């Protein structure tokens, strides 16, 4: 659906996107993740045909977004950052205008507007003036606009920015429901969002794509070195000695807690899960084990890990 080859975009004296390549297949929901200024919005603007690339090619649905711009744009529904709308228009009127602008006939546009308004739960506010709507509703109007001409590819630039948690949830559910029928590309710097919605993540930093994988795979890659936390009621010396006998512990840190309990934070060697041996140890000695968890590396760790070396390099 999207094919990006060696895309570079330079603004006067600054390279915003530096030689990136990726492909997205039909029906995927892909998250473009990165800190502010990583080049996410620029990539999306090039993809949507608003700006040309400095070099490289971008094809959407097999059409070059620069040479076949108008034709390619028919396949794209794009919601820019900050979701600009005409504040003086009414919701239905605006969507109708956008549908007609995107080449839908009179009758077809009426049908589609009704459909997307139901899909985005806008039916209650169809007669309201956009400028007077709450941010959550406005965001949904932007989404409805992006969907109104049934595009193959939906590009959403920071769709949940500035919404309250309840609104974020409803927008996420809506985006998730688009998968399969539409190809979706979302940009965000909020990590849980990507974990929740996307089948694949592209991590961008300083204009480059640093990682591209499913959120699960990225986590698995990191999971090898996961720390295990155990809370055990035992005399400190005995506990220390017992833990030291475990073969796979690379690093240990035991701190006293309330009562007899001690908190053991253990880092295993690569690829080893320490939980079974810890529970066996407690059972063997007759100690009370009240908690045993393995800390799951969130995307946040991956993100920090992936982006850190370069930022230090810069400093």
């Amino acid at each position, binding site marked *: 659906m999207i094919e990006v080859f060696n895309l570079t975009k330079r603004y006067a004296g600054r390279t915003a996107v530096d030689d990136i390549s990726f492909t997205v297949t039909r029906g995927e929901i892909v998250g473009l993740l990165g800190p502010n200024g990583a080049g996410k919005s620029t990539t999306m603007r090039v993809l949507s045909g608003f700006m040309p690339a400095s070099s490289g090619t971008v094809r959407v649905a097999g059409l070059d977004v620069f040479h076949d711009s108008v*034709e390619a744009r028919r396949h794209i529904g794009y919601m*820019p950052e*900050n979701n600009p709308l005409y504040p003086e228009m009414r919701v239905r009127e605006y969507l109708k205008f956008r549908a007609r602008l995107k080449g839908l006939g009179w009758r077809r546009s009426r049908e589609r507007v009704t459909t997307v308004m139901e899909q985005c739960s806008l039916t209650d506010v169809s007669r309201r003036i956009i400028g007077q709507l709450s941010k959550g509703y406005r965001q949904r109007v932007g989404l409805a606009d992006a969907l109104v001409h049934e595009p193959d590819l939906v590009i959403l630039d920071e769709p949940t920015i500035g919404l309250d948690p309840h609104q974020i949830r409803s927008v996420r559910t809506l985006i998730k429901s688009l998968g399969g029928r539409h190809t979706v590309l979302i940009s965000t710097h909020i990590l849980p969002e990507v974990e929740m919605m996307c089948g694949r993540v592209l991590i961008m930093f300083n204009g480059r794509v640093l990682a591209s994988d499913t959120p699960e795979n990225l986590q698995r890659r990191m999971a090898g070195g996961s720390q295990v936390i155990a809370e055990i009621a035992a005399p400190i010396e005995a506990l220390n000695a017992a833990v030291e006998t475990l073969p796979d512990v690379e690093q240990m840190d035991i701190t006293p807690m309330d009562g007899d309990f001690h908190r053991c934070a253990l880092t295993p060697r690569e690829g080893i899960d320490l939980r079974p041996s810890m529970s066996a140890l407690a059972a063997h000695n007759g100690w009370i084990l009240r908690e045993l968890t393995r800390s799951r590396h969130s995307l946040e760790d991956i993100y920090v890990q992936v982006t850190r070396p370069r930022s230090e390099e810069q400093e």
Partner: protein
Amino acid sequence: MSIFWVLTRRELASYFFSLTGYVIIGAITFLTGASFLQLINGLGNDALPMPVTQMFFGTFYFWMIVLLSAPVVTMRSFALEKSSGTFETLMTAPVGDLEVVAAKFAAAFLFYAVMWLPLLACLFLVGHFTNQAGVAGVLDAGTVTGTYLGIFLVGGYFLAFGCLTSALTRSQMVAAMMSLGFGVSQFALAWWVKSIPVSDHWQSEMWSCVDMFGQMNNFARGAVDTRAVIFYLSTTFLFLFLTLRVVESRRWK
């Protein structure tokens, strides 16, 4: 073509969605009325050897309308969309740059045309009462048509320039000031042309091309000078072409 109409309709409607359109029309109607009053006063004096429309063009208010309306009507066309970000949604829809420029100009022009309707009522009143008095030929179809042709040609010229300035900037204020500056310098040029001593025939020919007041006088007399028509049409198209290039410039900048 249908996209052009969809865009034009929205552009035109946007004047009436906001207060701007009504304020402009109100102000213009007031100025036209003031002009009309001056005209009636003028008619009360000695008989003049010129049509009523020509007298109207001589009034101070008429030129104020021409000078002020174009910047105010066109300042928002591109600048507002750029500053609010809707330019991005507009240009990522499957529409051509030419359609956008043409629609914006067409909407501004249509609004400008609507704005001049009260004048028709004024002229009708004058015509009605003067003809009733048995004085034929004070106002005939020829002079009225010539008048409106002149208004539209000069309007198109200034509106096209207004579109250009609006496309150049994100600020409506800057767009309006640039466009107003252009209008004022055009006026100054027309005055200056009047005052320079004409020593040579070709010089007077050349300067008459930019003598807006002289051209307008001709239109108001019902005399359509093709040189003026060609001048206004070609400059209008030139400015629109430049506007199109500015809109396209995001592709090669």
